[in-house]
């Protein structure tokens, strides 16, 4: 159980009669992505472990409520995971959601920064954890959970366009933290 060996591509129709959605199968397929999401969105590895466990628990308990006719598995699962993150304080709470909806109105910084391959995973993780909660959330969902922008938006309750713009903004901040600033004329 601790070494999930099944990838998404191996189970294209999870939740169908051919591949009934069980707790074990759900964990084997998604545990690594849930944990990577948790690592990126939490401020410490201990918090990440707690969050990943809590999110998986919620998903397992909610299996009975999943209905493939009402929506895809990815959207259902990552809404649960995002809610677990929100309840744990890793994602800005609802009082800040209204500001997230304005994300598409924010200008992307006019500052372009060079980033080379010269950083380690730990440096990158530290830089992600230094981002704001909003930016950590989109980075964790986009690159930790490997979701497209439509599902990032669904998980956070914002539009696809807002998810895209917020992610661009987060990447811009991340480049600033990692690289050497170069101001374009």
């Amino acid at each position, binding site marked *: 159980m601790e070494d999930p060996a099944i990838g998404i591509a191996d189970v294209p129709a999870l939740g169908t009669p051919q591949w009934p959605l069980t707790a074990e199968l759900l964990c084997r397929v998604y545990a690594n992505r849930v944990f990577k999401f948790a690592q990126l969105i939490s*401020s410490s590895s201990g918090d990440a472990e707690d969050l990943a466990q809590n999110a998986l*628990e919620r998903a397992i308990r909610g299996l009975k409520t999943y209905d493939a006719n009402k929506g895809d598995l990815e959207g259902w699962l990552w809404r649960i995971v995002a809610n677990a993150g929100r309840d744990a304080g890793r994602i800005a709470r*609802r009082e800040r959601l209204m500001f997230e909806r304005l994300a598409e109105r924010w200008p992307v910084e006019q500052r372009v920064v060079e980033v080379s391959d010269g*950083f380690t995973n730990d440096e990158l993780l530290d830089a992600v954890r230094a981002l704001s909660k909003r930016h950590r959330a989109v980075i964790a969902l986009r690159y930790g959970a490997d979701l497209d922008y439509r599902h990032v938006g669904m998980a956070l309750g914002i539009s696809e366009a807002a998810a895209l713009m917020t992610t661009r903004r987060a990447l811009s901040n991340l480049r600033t933290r990692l690289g050497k600033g170069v101001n374009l004329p």
Partner: protein
Amino acid sequence: MTEVLERALSEMEFELPAGLVDRALDAAEREPARKNAGRVIRLTSRTALVRVAALVIGVLLANVAAAYFAPKYGQALADSPIVGGVAGPVLRFSGLDASLITRLDASATSSGHTIRLVGGFADTERTVLLLEFDGEPHGLPNKQRECCYADGSLTDQFGREYHRVYSPDALTATFEPLAGPARDLGARLTFHVIELKPLGRNFHAVQGDWTLRLTLLQHAGVVLPVPGPATANGITYTLKSARLSGTQLKIQFELSGPPVDQQRGLPAQPMDNRSFAMGYVRPSLVDAQGNSASVHEWGFSSPKQGALSGGMTAIVPGSGRYTLRFGTAPDGPTFQIDVP
């Protein structure tokens, strides 16, 4: 450059912690109703120790154990309650009552910085630690002078970890209310700080290892009666709850009706007086003399269907009748709330 960064993010890998999936499966199976669960803590059995202990030693051990795991029992033995006052304006800013604060004096130094714990408070709404850094008195939040946010964990004697919740004053570290056995027996808490995150330009992030220990007993929060629903401008406003913790008032509310349904399909609006949020939701609270209470935060979530749910946190200066009003639009609804 973006491709390099995005590729690096996509290719990051983390080893799944041993036992994580099994713990999740076990917890989901054993405790279906548990909410916001933390890591499963397995306590070591002490059965063997009990079997070999002599009766007298056992009684002594029981007293020691009871005093440790049940601070209420320990305090009864010592008959020395430890309550006191901490700077009034600082407490009032966070809605705390000086008479309920437990005076503490614990400090830890690491990486050249000292964190001192000067007071604590716990009730059924929140758990609060009052901190000082590097000998500076705990003042009101000041963007020019604020140093840092203490990032770490708060854990009780039974291994339960409490999540941090928002507080307008970073030095008034606020967590979830005590739960489990510690809620009834009293909590021996460990606040383990691993990083000081800068809040202003005069401070840089510092990692270290600060451990502070304290004991807190939980007081009861106050649940206030709420008036019935009111309809204004086509919206029905329903107060779901009003809870008082010290002088901090938290109100949960719901909005429903045609204007609520219509705003769901609208594009994002700027936060001005023409927006739905400002015109029909923004709550304000005034006392009988017309003085505004300080509203620290408010907000709402708007699901795809059903009522809009929201909340607000305000600091009330004292007891009396307060008027809660929603929105800046004319004829907005008002509610009367009596604070004891």
